[in-house]
Every structure is written in structure tokens, then in C-alpha cells.
């Protein structure tokens, strides 16, 4: 790029100016500001996140995230596919909470179609969503502990994650990106033995989570690194549009599962962990406590799992069961129409928000009456939460920056889409 077209921020990036802030501990000493680049290939940024950090010594004075390094054009690809064929595409957005992506999308399409989801399907969805929440928090905990230096916790969390992925594999055949949620319900009923395995899992998960707490909660190093570092008050967070555990750590108990229940969440009795100070330690404790609550929800859902169909009976939306194809002509025609063209959705636009492990995950679908969506937009929580990095880390050390990034839990697949 020639000098004429260099943008201001690039010029600022390359300049070295004297800091306006007085150097800590020094009288009338001003230090130079240095702008360095962190990422996109970096062991501590969670994924391909590039940060342009302006430092004064070790203190972060400004921070600019540069994203787009894993932009996949998911929303554009989804416009090209039939509604149910877009589910696998949309699932791969936020790659740690794939059931949530599918839920938001299927919920939006069901809202457009005004399609009833059977109660059993709703409970099955809740079970898988909460198991996914536990899995996402386990990966978060493992990688965050890795960043802080508590490497053993990573191994333990991934051991738990393997048992979880076994459960997902039992119900849908795939470990990740399972394509289990379909428009109208779920693709298949749970197999025999699934319930027993899930109960065994939630029982051990609670014990294991206690063990992680025993390792980390009162650990002197964890406390020094997380307690009191990078707090952000609730008002700023609300102005930035931040939701999820970050907002709850600051004291605001906003959770869509309680505020605007969807998919039978109103049937379950669970608590919302809320922090008091909004610093990194509260964010860690809030997410850790959510693991217990998710275990409770899963157990309650299994207790109350009703009998019934696992997907809507509307043959215009959901595939007929295989055995019907042998005897019924209508079933064959429906199957053919659904597989080749897909179902048509009445024109309109809908925004369907749910509570993902990182905050409000919303799906906007614009339908033009055909069998392909005209616009799919996923409002990803990490994308919006990332804007809070700069206010949080201004004035703190690089080590705190690493800890804050870990506690923010950004998933770059969702940020970049």
C-alpha cells in the first residue's frame, strides 16, 4: 500500500508516541507507547484472534481486535441451501456449542412455519443443549486453566469431555456437529441405555466439578491472577451488548432460559449463578457453577421425559418414518418432495434468541416463500462480547490480558462466522 492510502489506524499502529499517562511509580517519567501484534497464530488467543496491543511497558493502554481470520461465509452458504440442508452449515458456526446453533436456527424456522414441536422433542432438545453447555464450559475451563498455567486441569476436563462426546455419539452417531436437531424436533429418538448413561455421567460430573473447584477455587496463583483483575461494571457491559456469564458475573441475572423460556425450560427448576464484582474470578466461578445447574436440568428432564413423537407429525415439514414408505403413497410423495426441494416457508422475517454458553445467540431468518432462506444471520454472542475486551483490559498487564481473554471465552468460529 502506498503512503496515500495508509489508513489512520495503521499510521497509529506504526507510530511511537509518548504516553499521556504518568508512568506507574515514577515521578514525571513518561514512557514510550509501543504497538505490538498478538496473533493470529498465538498460543494464548483462543483461536485465530489477532490483537493489536498498544503497550506502555507491560501495561496495556489500548487494544484493537482484528478478526475475520476464520470467516467462512456461513450465512451466504446457508442462503444457497434448502432449509433443512442449511442446518449442518449453521451448526459449524460456534463450534463448541453446535446444538445451540442448530436450536436457534430450527427455532427461527419453526416460528416462521408456526410448527409445533412435540413435548418429547423439546425435552430431548433440552437434554442435549444442557449437555452441550457442560461440554462448552469444560473446554473453556481446560483451555483457560492452560493459559493460566494449571495444565493438569486441561487433561481432566478433556477426559470428561470424552464421556460427553460418547453420549452424543450414542444419540446421533457423531461426536461433534451432530445434525441432531431438525426443524420440528430431533432426527431420532434416544437409544436404549442412553438415559442410564446420562444419569451416570451427571453423577460423576458433579464430583469431578468439585475436584476442579478444589484445585482452582482457593489456589493462591489463581486468586492472584483472577481476583480483582479487569473488572467491568454492568452499565458498560449493557451498553456494549454483552450477555451471558460475563453479564451475570457483573451482577445482572439476565438469562433467556428464565426471562423468555423456550423449548420447555419453564418446566425445570434451576438457579442462575450471579457474581458480585464482575472481575475475572467471578466470571470463572459463574461458569463453573453453571455446570452444576446444567447437570440438574438434565436430571430433571430425564425424570420428566414424556412419551410421544420425537419430531412433528406434519409430513410437509418432517420426513415420514422409514417403514411408512413401504405402504403409503403419500409418505413416499412427502419424502420425495422434502428431500429434493424441501419444505416451503411462508414469507416473513423472524428473530429467535436463545441462551448459549456465551450469551444470547440469536438467529434471524428472512424467508421469501421459497424453499431456501433468503437471509440467515446468526447473532453470535462472542462477536459482541469481544468488544468488551478493550474496556476490560485498559490499564492492566499483559498477563491480565491473557487471563481476561480466557475468561471472555471467545469462540472465533462464532465471531467470524
Amino acid at each position, binding site marked *: *500500500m502506498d503512503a496515500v492510502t495508509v*489508513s489512520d*489506524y495503521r499510521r497509529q499502529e506504526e507510530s511511537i508516541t509518548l504516553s499521556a499517562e504518568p508512568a506507574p511509580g515514577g515521578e514525571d517519567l513518561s514512557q514510550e507507547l509501543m504497538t505490538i501484534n498478538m496473533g493470529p497464530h498465538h498460543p494464548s488467543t483462543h483461536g485465530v484472534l489477532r490483537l493489536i496491543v498498544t503497550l506502555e511497558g507491560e501495561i496495556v493502554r489500548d487494544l484493537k481486535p482484528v*478478526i*475475520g481470520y476464520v*470467516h467462512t*461465509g456461513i*450465512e*451466504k*452458504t446457508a*442462503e*444457497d441451501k434448502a432449509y433443512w440442508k442449511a442446518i449442518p452449515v449453521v451448526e459449524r458456526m460456534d463450534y463448541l456449542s453446535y446444538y445451540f446453533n442448530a436450536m436457534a436456527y430450527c427455532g427461527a424456522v419453526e*416460528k*416462521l412455519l*408456526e410448527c409445533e414441536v412435540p413435548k418429547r422433542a423439546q425435552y430431548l432438545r433440552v437434554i442435549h443443549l444442557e449437555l452441550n453447555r457442560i461440554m462448552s464450559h469444560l473446554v473453556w475451563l481446560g483451555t483457560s486453566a492452560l493459559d493460566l498455567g494449571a495444565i493438569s486441569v486441561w487433561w481432566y476436563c478433556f477426559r470428561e469431555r470424552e464421556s460427553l462426546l460418547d453420549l452424543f455419539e450414542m444419540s446421533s452417531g457423531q461426536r461433534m456437529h451432530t445434525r441432531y436437531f431438525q426443524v420440528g424436533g430431533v432426527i431420532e429418538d434416544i437409544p436404549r441405555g442412553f438415559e442410564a448413561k446420562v444419569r451416570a455421567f451427571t453423577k460423576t460430573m458433579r464430583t469431578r466439578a468439585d475436584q476442579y473447584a478444589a484445585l482452582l477455587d482457593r489456589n493462591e496463583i489463581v486468586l492472584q491472577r483472577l481476583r480483582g483483575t479487569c473488572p467491568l461494571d454492568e452499565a*458498560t457491559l*449493557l*451498553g*456494549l*451488548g*454483552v*450477555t451471558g456469564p460475563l453479564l451475570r458475573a457483573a451482577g445482572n441475572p*439476565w438469562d433467556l432460559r428464565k*426471562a*423468555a423460556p423456550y423449548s420447555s425450560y419453564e418446566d425445570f427448576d434451576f438457579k442462575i449463578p450471579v457474581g458480585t464484582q464482575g472481575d475475572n474470578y467471578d466470571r470463572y466461578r459463574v461458569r463453573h457453577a453453571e455446570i452444576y445447574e446444567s447437570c440438574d436440568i438434565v436430571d430433571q428432564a430425564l425424570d420428566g421425559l414424556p412419551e410421544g413423537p420425537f419430531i412433528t407429525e406434519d409430513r410437509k415439514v418432517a420426513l415420514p418414518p422409514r417403514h411408512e414408505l413401504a405402504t403409503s403413497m403419500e409418505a413416499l410423495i412427502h419424502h420425495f418432495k422434502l428431500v429434493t426441494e424441501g419444505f416451503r416457508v411462508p414469507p*416473513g*422475517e*423472524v*428473530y429467535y*434468541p436463545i441462551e448459549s454458553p456465551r450469551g*444470547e445467540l*440469536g438467529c*434471524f431468518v*428472512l424467508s421469501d416463500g421459497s424453499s431456501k432462506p*433468503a*437471509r440467515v*444471520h446468526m*447473532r453470535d454472542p462472542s*462477536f*459482541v462480547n*469481544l*468488544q468488551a475486551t478493550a474496556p476490560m483490559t485498559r490499564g492492566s498487564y499483559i498477563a491480565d490480558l491473557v487471563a481476561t481473554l480466557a475468561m471472555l471465552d471467545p469462540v472465533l468460529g462464532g465471531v*467470524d*462466522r
Partner: protein
Amino acid sequence: MPDATGLELIAQDLRASHPDAVLGTTFFREEATLEVAPARLLDAATQLHARGYSFLASCHGVDYYPAEPRLGVHYQLLDMPNVDRICLKARVGVEDPHVPSLCELWPGANHPEREVYDMFGVVFDGHPDLRRILMPEDYEGHPQRRDFPVGGEPVIFTYNEDKIPGWTR
């Protein structure tokens, strides 16, 4: 959600203060959408903010091709204490895609507006740092417009594997 009458009352109040602001209201599937003229977007947003819709849940763009005006910007607002949502919509054409930025009201609109600029080409007047966010900075074109091709690589089957230039050949 405000029900249909609630939405009409909101529109009425907005019309009272800014007569040319409201272009239409839609109440579809229990969701309220308020379409405003792009020039009045900031006034409408300020009024809704004062009314209680103080949380910006989402800002996204839509290409309504072939309907004109093609490019739409949606602001999904949320009233947390009442759990109320409303969508503020402004539509601009491709020739003059200028919309006032809502970054002063909601700092969290920064990245989403940059994404709408990147993907659709809508220019937000007053945005502190409007440049591409997801595509490389020197990319040409706005990918999520409907007339932008999906792109990609041709799929290699046996009938065309000799004709397509291979990646490793």
C-alpha cells in the same frame, strides 16, 4: 413482545415527535418491527431508548433483492425489565447507502455496524472506525449482497477432472 396495539402506540408517539419518521409497522409471529426512514434512525432509536428499549441485542443487515430499497439494517432492541423486543428497521438503496450510526447510543454497535458495512456496503455516518472487519481490508465487493456470487472451487468429478486445473498438478 409489545403486542400489536403496543406497537401502534409506539409508532404513534414517534410520529408525534418526528412526523416523517415512521414508514410502517409489522406485527408478524408475535414480533414487532418498526420501519423508519434512514435519516430519522437516530431520533427513533433515542426515543425507543428513552422508552425502555435500552439494550441492543443485535444489529444486522439484509439484502431484500429484488425488492427496492434493497439494503436493510435491522436493530433488534430489548427492554430487559419487561422482556420486550422490538426491531428497528431502515432500508436504503444501493446507490446511496447512508445510514446514521448508533454507536453513541450503544457502543456495542461498533463491530456489528462494521460487519454490515463489510458484507453489504451500508455506510454508517458517524461511525468512529468504519472499515472492513471480516474480509481482508483491501477486498473488493460486498459478499452478502444477493448479486455477489457464492464463489468456491469447482467440484472435481470424473467427467471434469481432466479439464479442471488441478491444485497439485
